[in-house]
């Protein structure tokens, strides 16, 4: 839907080049990329700089404040907080992104199909209602009971549980995205340009992928941002219930949870994991903003 004719003859650029050029002009997004890259680098390279084993219990150094040996102090078992934040970050980021991605794909697919194809709307939305209505905790208990040992035997205790957790979070959090996307699609498909596309014989699949989805991108991006925070926190709730990783396996959410009672003794235990989660979510939010602007056909050309 070109709205203005450019003054100068346009150089032909690919779609993605176009997106990148717009994205580059978005200060917030660039800062977001910077912060996010720093977090990822710190989490993966940090252990090489600060080589303390995150699970080693140093009983001589329990509940320590900031020191040279322990830059962020230690917890009540003498574990190094900095090393735990690094180790926890690797898991939390992996779980957060994988689970967000799964729930986003599921939610967008269900939402788009239900919104666009009237025949699918009823069954798919009732299916969504069913998932919304199922009590989460018993559902988790049952999933874990049925699949934990199988997956543990197949992939080992850590990888197996990783798949399980991503699956569990993804499968229990896609409904909100699905309903929001459906609402958007319902409105978009009645707009003029869709009618126009249809009248010139564009195939359904192309209408959905080229016209509907790009226009429903904003709420999807917001869902993605919120989904990461949600997945990181849900993971900690799962491990608290004993449905997640082994208890000596640090993750950001778990560090925050375990440290909460120690907030007046060693505030660093909750400050840093909390900050790490918030910064990750914030930077993803800005990246999402930038991407949305860059992918919006109306904004790109102006």
């Amino acid at each position, binding site marked *: 839907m070109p*709205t203005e004719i450019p003054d100068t003859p346009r150089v032909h650029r690919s779609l993605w080049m176009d997106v990148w050029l717009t994205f580059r002009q978005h200060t*917030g997004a660039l800062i977001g990329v910077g912060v996010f890259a720093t977090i990822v680098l710190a989490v993966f390279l940090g252990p090489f700089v600060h080589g303390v084993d995150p699970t080693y219990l140093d009983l001589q150094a329990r509940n320590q404040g900031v020191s040279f040996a322990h830059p962020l102090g230690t917890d009540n078992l003498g574990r190094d907080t900095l090393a735990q934040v690094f180790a926890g970050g690797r898991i939390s980021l992996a779980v957060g992104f994988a689970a967000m991605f799964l729930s986003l794909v599921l939610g967008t697919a269900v939402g788009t199909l239900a919104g666009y194809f*009237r025949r699918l709307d*009823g069954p798919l*939305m*009732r299916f969504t*209602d*069913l998932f*919304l*209505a*199922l*009590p989460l*905790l*018993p*559902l988790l*208990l*049952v999933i874990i*009971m049925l699949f934990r040992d199988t997956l543990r035997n197949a992939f080992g205790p850590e990888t197996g549980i990783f798949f399980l957790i991503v699956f569990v979070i993804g499968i229990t959090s896609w*409904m*909100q995205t699905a*309903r*929001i996307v459906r*609402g*958007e699609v*319902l*409105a978009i498909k*009645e*707009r003029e340009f869709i009618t126009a596309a249809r009248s010139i014989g564009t195939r359904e699949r192309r209408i959905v992928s080229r016209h509907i989805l790009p*226009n429903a991108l*904003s*709420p999807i*991006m*917001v869902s993605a*941002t*919120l989904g990461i*925070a949600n997945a*990181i*926190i849900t993971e*900690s709730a799962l491990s608290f219930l004993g449905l997640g990783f082994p208890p000596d396996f640090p993750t950001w*959410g778990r560090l*925050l*949870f375990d440290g*909460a009672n120690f*907030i*007046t003794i060693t505030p660093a235990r*909750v400050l840093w994991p*909390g900050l790490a*989660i*918030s910064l*990750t*979510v*914030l930077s993803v*939010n*800005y990246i999402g903003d930038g991407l*949305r602007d860059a992918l*919006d056909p*109306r*904004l790109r050309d102006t």
Partner: protein
Amino acid sequence: MIRFITRRLMFAVPTLIAISFAIFALLDLAPNDPTGQLPLTIPPEVRAQIRDSLGLDQPFHVRYAKWMEQFFVNEPLNLVEEAFDIEIGASSERPRIRSWATRSPVVDIIAERMPQTLWVVGMSYVFGILIAVPIGVISAYRQYSWFDQIGTFVSMVGFSVPTFFTGLLAIILFSVMLQWLPSIYDTTHEVTDLSSFWVQVKQMLMPVMVLALYNAAQLSRFMRSAMLDNLNLDYVRTARSKGLRERAVLLIHVLRNSMIPVVTMIALGVPTIFSGAIITEQIFRVNGLGQLLIVAIQGADIPLVQTLTFLFAVLIVLFNLIADVLYGILDPRIRYD
């Protein structure tokens, strides 16, 4: 529209029955046990007998059929009797849905829990919406202004820091250090005059604020993004060029058209008011429906969990229908027939 609503309502009945079956099967499969909280000194034979006395020795389909009868026949009859003060049949012989932990009728417990949950969780929702919508609108209108940046920051931090943590922080600050607010909610407190109203406000303040922050964070993001989408559309330009006042353009045209995701979120959220806010209720000991549900799940109180989740399912189906109706009102181009 009327035809659409009737059709949806008729479709809702089989949906709900399917949901009730799914919930029942799920609870039956779940590895909890009603004798799980008894002291370990209670021997296994006694536990087995307790389970039998709760009817757990009967096969699955018998228990499900019993629950169905109690929920769809007996309890509505009781309600009718109470409402009109009449007696239909042998009402004292009619079995009611009884919680396993308390041995009392589930419906009575739920009714007892309603007030505090509606007060605390409902209020927090209202506040959440009241905060989120203006923030979302202004953030979008003045995109990348200081207001927007701060709003983004606060809402992202508000969403990514879980309520168990903000709640604890609030208690340490306002109850332990400043000693301004009570950390424990008194569910038996009655508001009779100004001073008791003040006590009620004080005990509601922390849980409501903690929850409202969380809800507002989420809602304001959707509001902002939807506004941004619409602000760039042609009709806005048209409206402006027609000489409409900026405020009218914003509040009448853009806001209305941006409400679809927000309405979806609110419709998804209203049933969760009734399901309570589990963590917040636990932290401040509000002991509403959320706390009831979690205690029941942990104690494997199946009749209570089943009834609560099923009522919750009814609300979900109902509010999703309301959302669909609202879509049609907000955007008349959307049709379902």
